[in-house]
């Protein structure tokens, strides 16, 4: 197996086995979305109107929950030193780690969202649109979050700082994610307009994230 394929498989195994964050993120997502109707009350119209936003906030928090361990586990056990010394380029290593993280924690959120959308009394076309925006938008959250994870890799309790660093950067993704989901029913613009910008943000994060995170990791050892 090639170096990067083998890294992907290892990251995937670590995420889904005991102590990995994959199931934790999906469960957290479920809890957040389930709790909201209790707080907001049983107003079905209101729930269906704020549904896409709740799903997006839940997905954002669930992604952040496991991101702080993205590089820290490797730093804590000395694996990061060895990764830095390997032939594979660090940018590609970060890219592969993010893809594996998304496949293990982001993709389950996307798959669970249609079910949770029913809890929020959302229309079928809004459910489809929200799932599509999450599919395109959650990689952007992971890649943006990777920058924060790399910057806080040396801090023992870096999770909170990570959230403070990363949440402002995810605001554009949130705005365009939610607005394209609601555009189907309530919007004044067609679905594809905000959705294209969301897709562009995702691609931008996928390019910028690995370079920024790799630069941060190179300096983390000193």
């Amino acid at each position, binding site marked *: *197996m*090639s*170096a990067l*394929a*083998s*890294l992907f498989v*290892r990251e995937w*195994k*670590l995420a889904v*086995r*005991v*102590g*990995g964050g994959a199931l934790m993120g999906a469960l957290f997502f479920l809890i957040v979305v389930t709790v909201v109707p209790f707080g907001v009350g049983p107003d079905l119209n209101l729930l269906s109107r704020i549904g896409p936003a709740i799903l997006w906030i839940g997905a954002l928090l669930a992604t952040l929950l496991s991101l702080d361990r993205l590089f820290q*586990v*490797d730093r804590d*056990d*000395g*694996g990061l*030193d*060895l*990764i*830095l*010394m*390997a*032939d*594979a380029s660090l940018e590609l290593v970060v890219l592969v780690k993010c893809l594996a993280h998304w496949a293990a924690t982001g993709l389950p959120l996307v798959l669970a969202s249609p079910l949770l959308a029913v809890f929020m009394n959302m229309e079928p076309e809004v459910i489809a649109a929200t799932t599509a925006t999450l599919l395109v938008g959650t990689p952007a959250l992971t890649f943006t979050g990777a920058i924060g994870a790399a910057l806080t890799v040396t801090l023992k309790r870096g999770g909170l700082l990570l959230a403070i660093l990363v949440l402002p950067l995810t605001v554009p993704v949130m705005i365009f994610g939610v607005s394209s989901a609601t555009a189907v029913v309530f919007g004044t613009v067609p679905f594809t307009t905000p959705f294209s910008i969301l897709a562009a943000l995702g691609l931008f994060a996928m390019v910028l994230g690995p370079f920024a995170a790799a630069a941060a990791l190179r300096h983390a*050892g*000193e």
Partner: protein
Amino acid sequence: MSIPVSRLSGQGLTLDRGGRRVLADLDFVATSGEALVVTGPNGAGKSTLLRLIAGLLRPVAGRLVLDGGDPELSIAQHCHYFGHQDALKAALSVGENLGFWRDFFGEADDTVYDALDRVGLARLVDLPAAYLSAGQRRRLAFARLLVSKRPIWLLDEPTSALDAASETRLIEIVGEHLDGGGLVVAATHLALPFSRMASLRLGAAVIAEAVA
């Protein structure tokens, strides 16, 4: 790596850590087929020197020169670093842990099973690494040096946590690496009976001299 290395030398290496000068104007020469044993009290900069060679720290002054080797690759890419940390994942089995590093480093050498056999862990190939003892973790980490071919081995306290039999085995394996034209830099505060060795003593005053 097909191109053999002949000599690794440091010239005037100076390095600061946390505002404190750890290495000052250090010169050393390590030749292939001979282990350079770095000794000195705690805090003398032994580990720092190894991390410097491994490319994990950058010197403020001085340079490292490698004679031989693949000119396309950095010095760090010629090195295996066997540090204090074992880089093992508790959730993966012994075989999976080692197999990952074999694929990741490339230049495959021994198979996973052969390498585990050489460090005496072949029976435990399917056991999760979480259940290994300190000495077994150390041996598994050392097996990483056997599954991928790199000519320079940087060993930081290689025999810590090992029993007498494992220590003898490790010395033998390092000896085989040296016989094959490999280069070894080992930091230790114990006497390591390598067959051919030079020594480098780092003092607390950090004025080091190479003793041939």
